[in-house]
């Protein structure tokens, strides 16, 4: 009985995962088809903005510049901080529109935001 329940939970989780992947693809396609006219506000991380960030976020952002797109784990390996701490900093940078978050399979990646978005 327990193993059946467990199997059902695993199947449900797999379904949720594949739905999330499909949603991400749809959102990315929508962004790509946005016409130039609609791309009115730009969020990207330039060096003077980088300098004005608080120390902890600047270290995280600089690391992402150095190593390119990376997971929170990979950033934490460079900065010698806990993965959870880096994940928190990276998500703060995502909320500030300086960093973009995306999924590849089951991994969550972060990269410096250089894309144009709708206001």
């Amino acid at each position, binding site marked *: 009985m327990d193993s059946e329940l467990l199997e059902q939970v695993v199947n449900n989780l797999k379904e949720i995962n594949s739905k999330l992947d499909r949603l991400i693809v749809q959102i990315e396609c929508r962004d790509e088809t946005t016409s130039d006219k609609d791309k009115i506000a730009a969020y*990207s991380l330039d060096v003077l*903005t980088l*300098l004005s960030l608080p120390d902890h976020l600047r270290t995280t952002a600089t690391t992402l*510049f150095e190593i390119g797109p990376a997971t929170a784990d990979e950033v934490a390996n460079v900065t010698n901080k806990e993965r959870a701490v880096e994940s928190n900093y990276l998500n703060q940078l995502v909320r500030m529109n300086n960093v973009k978050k995306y999924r590849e399979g089951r991994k969550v990646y972060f990269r*410096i935001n*250089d894309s144009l978005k709708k206001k």
Partner: protein
Amino acid sequence: MTLTLAIHSSKGGTGKTSIAVNLAVAFASAGKDTCLIDMDLRGPSLCSMFKPKTHFWINDFLSGKCNLKDTLTDSKKDIGTSGHLYLSFSNPDIGEIRDLVSKDRNWQAGALKALMNGKRELAEENIDVTILDTSPGVEYESINAVAASDMVIIVHNDTKACHDCTEQLIKGVYTLLDKRCAIIDNMYHGNCLDIKEKNRYGVPVLTTIPCMCDIATRSKNEILVHSDPEHLFSKSIMTIKDKIEAMQ
């Protein structure tokens, strides 16, 4: 592993380009594969000294129009260095410079990303040393170059304005970007033998180069470190090179 140096100063006319060119030739003459990039996009100088052999400028690379290696001219044979000496030129066309001044922060953000990618590109090509010659002060292009570098070489003049601004740059830019720094005192008017200073603002002073008219006059037609290795200026450049290598 490629070592990337940004040659920067707080004020103009401190001798950054002379030091950048001679340092690049010094590294290449010692057998290091070297790349010298003119990041002074507002006041290009490299094209006044050498002739580019490609159609692409560093401006094109920063705008995402080509790869960094498409902008490189190998001057190994022309100068006679044992290592490769790749040069990347900034476009001297006044229309291009006017266009650059009006670039917004998004372009600058893209330019920084391009520079970081270029750094990886050069590492894959096994370049030993990359030297970024920058424009003075806090300009987007020069701070982008500082951000992309492993070490900042500050070319310093003995004036109060230069002292004040250098201290600000160290505290407000280089340290925030977690960069190692070193100072070169250039065009020094005092007696170099009296100098005891090894550190300033917590940064090592690599050498002091006295003010000599023939450096300015001869540099128009020759690269002193190559044509006259026994010249005091050339010896100072070799000292800088050796100290930078010892710091790695």
